[in-house]
C-alpha cells in the first residue's frame, strides 16, 4: 500500500517532467533567438542551435536530459554555460531554509490556534483566530512584504529590508536576514492550516465516540487530546503537506520582494531567457518537493489509520 503510493508519486514526477518539457517547446521563440536577438542572421541562428543541440528531435533531447537527471546531472544552462546543479544547489538550500523557517513559525501557530479555536468554538478566541487568519491570507504577499519592510526595517530598522545572503553568511545572521520574508510567508499559509485543523477537530468532536467519552466522565482536555485529536490528524496532515509544498514552490514573489537568492528567482530568469534546461531543472525540483510532501502525507494517513495498521 505504502509502496504503491510511493510508486505513484514517482510516476507523477515522470509525467510532470514530460509536461514541463512539452510546454517549454510550445513557448514561442527559442534560446537562440532570445540570446542572439532579433537581428541575428538565419545562418548564425542555425549554427548556434546546432552548437546547443537544439536541432536534434525533441524526444531525443528529452531522453538525453532524463538520463542525465537520473545521474544527478541537470546539464548546463544554455545561456551562460554554467553547470545547473552548481547554481541550483545553494539556491535550493536557501529556498528550503526560508521555507523551513516559515514552517517553524506557521505550523505551531496554525495547529495550536486551530485546536484552541475548536475547543472554544463560537467564542471570542475562535472568531479572532479566524478573522486574523483570513485577513492575513487575503492580503497579497507583496503587500504584506512591503508593509513589513516599511514598518520593521525603514521606520524601526529592526530587520534588514533585503534578504541577501551568501553561502558563507553565518547562521545567526542568516536567520535575522530571512525573518521578514519568513513572516510574510507565515501570513500566507497559516489561515488554511488553521481552518482545517479547527474544522477537523470540530467534526471529530461531534462524533458518537466523543460523546461517549464525555458520558464516561472524562475531562474536556482528555477528550480532546485522547479521543478527538488523533482521529482529526489525517486531513490536517494532508493540508499541512500542501502548504509546506507551497512554502517551497510559491515563494517566487516573496523572493523577488526581498531579493532573496532562491530557486524562484533563478527560474523566472530562465523563463525570460527560454533557458529550457534550467526551467526543466527548477520545474523538476519544485514538482519533486510537491510530490514528496504529498506522498509523505498519504503515507502518514495510512500509518495513522488503525484499520490499515491493524488489519482484521
Amino acid at each position: 500500500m505504502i509502496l504503491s503510493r510511493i510508486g505513484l508519486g514517482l510516476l507523477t514526477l515522470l509525467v510532470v517532467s514530460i509536461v514541463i518539457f512539452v510546454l517549454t517547446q510550445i513557448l514561442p521563440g527559442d534560446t537562440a533567438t532570445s540570446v542572439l536577438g532579433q537581428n541575428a542572421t538565419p545562418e548564425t541562428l542555425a549554427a548556434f542551435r546546432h552548437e546547443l543541440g537544439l536541432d536534434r528531435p525533441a524526444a531525443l533531447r528529452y531522453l538525453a536530459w532524463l538520463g542525465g537527471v537520473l545521474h544527478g546531472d541537470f546539464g548546463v544552462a544554455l545561456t551562460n554555460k554554467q553547470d545547473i546543479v552548481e547554481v541550483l544547489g545553494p539556491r535550493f538550500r536557501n529556498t528550503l531554509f526560508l521555507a523551513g523557517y516559515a514552517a517553524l513559525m506557521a505550523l505551531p501557530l496554525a495547529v495550536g490556534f486551530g485546536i484552541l479555536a475548536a475547543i472554544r468554538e463560537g467564542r471570542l478566541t475562535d472568531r479572532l483566530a479566524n478573522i486574523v487568519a483570513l485577513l492575513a491570507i487575503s492580503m497579497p504577499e507583496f503587500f504584506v512584504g512591503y508593509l513589513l519592510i516599511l514598518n520593521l526595517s525603514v521606520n524601526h530598522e529592526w530587520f534588514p529590508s533585503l534578504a541577501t545572503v551568501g553561502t558563507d553568511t553565518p547562521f545567526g545572521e542568516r536567520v535575522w536576514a530571512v525573518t521578514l520574508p519568513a513572516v510574510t510567508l507565515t501570513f500566507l499559509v497559516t489561515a488554511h492550516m488553521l481552518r482545517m485543523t479547527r474544522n477537523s477537530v470540530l467534526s471529530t468532536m461531534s462524533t458518537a465516540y466523543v460523546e461517549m467519552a464525555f458520558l464516561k466522565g472524562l475531562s474536556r482536555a482528555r477528550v480532546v487530546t485522547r479521543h478527538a485529536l488523533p482521529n482529526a490528524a489525517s486531513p490536517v496532515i494532508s493540508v499541512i503537506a500542501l502548504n509546506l509544498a507551497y512554502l517551497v514552490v510559491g515563494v517566487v514573489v516573496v523572493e523577488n520582494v526581498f531579493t532573496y537568492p532562491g530557486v524562484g528567482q533563478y527560474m523566472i530568469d530562465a523563463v525570460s531567457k527560454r533557458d529550457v534546461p534550467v526551467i526543466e531543472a527548477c520545474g523538476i525540483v519544485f514538482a519533486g518537493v510537491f510530490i514528496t510532501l504529498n506522498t509523505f502525507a498519504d503515507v502518514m494517513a495510512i500509518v495513522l489509520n488503525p484499520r490499515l495498521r491493524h488489519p482484521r
Partner: protein
Amino acid sequence: MADDRILCLEKLRVETIAGRVLVDDVDVELKRGEILGLIGESGAGKSTIGLASMAYARAGMRITGGTITLAGTELRASTALYRRHTRGKSIAYIAQSAAASFNPGMTLMDQVCEAPVVHGVMGRAEAEVYAKKLFRTLQLPNPDTIGDRYPHQVSGGQLQRVMAAMAMSCRPDVIVLDEPTTALDVTTQIEVLALLRDLIAEFGTAGLYITHDLAVVAQIAHRIMVLRHGKTIECGDTVQILEHPRTDYCRALVNERRDAEHLTLSVPDRAAPPILRVRDVTAGYGTAAAARNAVAVVKNASFDLAKGETLAIVGESGSGKSTMARIVTGLLPRWSGDIELAGKSLPPALGRRPNDILRRLQMVHQMPDTALNPRQTLAQIIGRPVALFFGRGRAEVRARVLELLRLVGLPEEFADRKPGQLSGGQKQRVCIARALAAEPEVIICDEPTSALDPLVAEEVLKLLKGLQDRLGLAYVFITHDLGTVRRIAHRTAVMLKGEIIAQGPTEQIFSPPYHPYTEKLILSVPEMHTTWLDEILQKRGGAAGLVAGAAERPAEVTPAARAAAADAGAVAETERMAAREVLGEGRGAAGLEALQTEVRNLKGMMEI
C-alpha cells in the same frame, strides 16, 4: 421508600436553544435493581431523557427545568466537576451504535479501562482484570486477548457486548441503555438482550431501557413508560401495559405489534406469467473479469415475480438482499445469469438499459431523507420522471404531480414544499410517488419502512398494498423484518450468505417444516409477552447454547448439534470461532460503513 430510589427525575424539561420543548414535565422514578423501559417513536424524547438523567444535554439542547436526583444528590444544583464524576462512575451509558461509539484509534481495553482509572475507582492493572472478568461474563470470545483489538476487528454484536462491559467497568448504580440492540440482526439481538439482562441482574444495577420496540422491552423491563412528543402518555407495570393499555395511543402501539405476528396475505392466482424473472444470477463487487479475486455477494439466485404480486426477500445484514436489489436495478451489473422483464432479457448494467426499461423498473429506498434532493420542491422531484419518460408539457406535468400526490395520500399544497418540511413518513410517500410517476410495472422496495416509526411504517405498508390492488404493481420487497413480511408479502425468499435458501408462498415459509435457518430467524423475533426470552432460551438449552448454536452458527446446525454444543462449553467456544471464520461474521464497522457509504453514493447517482 425514599432510600429505595436510586434515580429520580422530577418535572424534567429539556428545550432546544431555539426554545422548542423536547421533554415536557416528565417524572421518572427508578428503584435500585429495577429496569424501566422508555418506549416511544422517534422524537418522543426518550434518548433526551436518558441523557438528561446523566445531567447531559446534546449540543443545541438545554435542561431548563426540574430536578435530577442520583443516589440522593441533586445533579443540576451540583458543580460541573461533581456531575462529571458521576458520569461513567455512578451512572453509565450504552449507546445504540457500538460501531460509532468506540474510538476507532484506541484498543478496546484502553477504552474499557479509561473510566475506572480516570475516576480513581481502580488502578489500570485491576481495571484490566475486572474488564476481562466482564468479557467472560458477557461470553466474548478470547476474553483475555480481545481487549487488545481495535473496534473494527470485532463484530457488531461483540462490540455491543464490549460496550456493556465498558458501562459496567465502574460498577455503576444506574445504567442507561439507549436502543442497545436495535442496530443488531435479530439473531444477534436475542443473544445480546439475554446477556444484558443477566448482567444487570447479576450486579443489581438499575436500568433505563430506551427502545421503540415493545416486544424487546417486554423481555427486560419491570415497568414501562410510554412517551410521545416529550410527554408521558402512560406508565405502568410491563404486563399491564401489554395486556391492558389504558390510552388509545398505547393500544395502537400494542396492536400494531400484534398484527405483525399474524399472516395477512395469501398467494394470489398465479396464472399470470411472471413479469420479472431472475435466473441463476451471480454478482459481487469488482468486475466479472476480476471475479477470481472478488467474492460473489449473491450466488445463483433465481426467482419469479408475477404481476400484482409481492415477493419479500428477507435475510440478515450481509446476506446479500440489498445487493440483490442493486443487481436487478442494474446498479451492480450481474456477472452471470439472466434477468428478464416481461420476457425480455435486461442488459446487466444500468447505463446500457434503454429509458423504457428504466421506466418500468423503479426503486424506493430505505432512507427517504437521503433519497430526496433537499433543494428541490416535491413538484420538481415527482415531475422529473414524468417529463423524462413521457415528455409532457409543463401544465400536464403539474397536473400529473398533483394527481400523484393525491394517490399517495399527501395534500396537493405539498407540491411546492421541499423535503425538509416533511416528516419521515411523508418523505417516503414522496419517494413512492416519484416511483409511480414513471408508471412502472415493478417497484423494488429496499427496506422502505425500516427507518420509520412503527405506526408510520404501518401506514406506508397500507399505502403500498392499496396501490398494488389498484394499479397491479409487482413489488420486490427487501426487508429484515419478518413482521413486515407477514403483512405485505405473497411470497417470500430467504437469503443467507448470498444464496436463496428457501422460497415459496409466505404462508408455507412461515409454517413447518421450516428450513433450519428460517426457523432460527422466526424464533429470533421477540414476541409480545414477558416470558418469550426465557422460553426461547430454554428451547435452545440456555444462554451458552443460544450463543453457540443459534446466533453465530451457519444454518446447517440441527437441534441435536445445538444441544451438544450447549453441553460442551469449551467445544462450543472453538466451534463458535470456527463458525465465525466461515461466516466472515463481524466484518465489522469499517466494512459495513464503507459499504453503506458506497450504496448511498450509488443511490445518489441514480437519483440524478
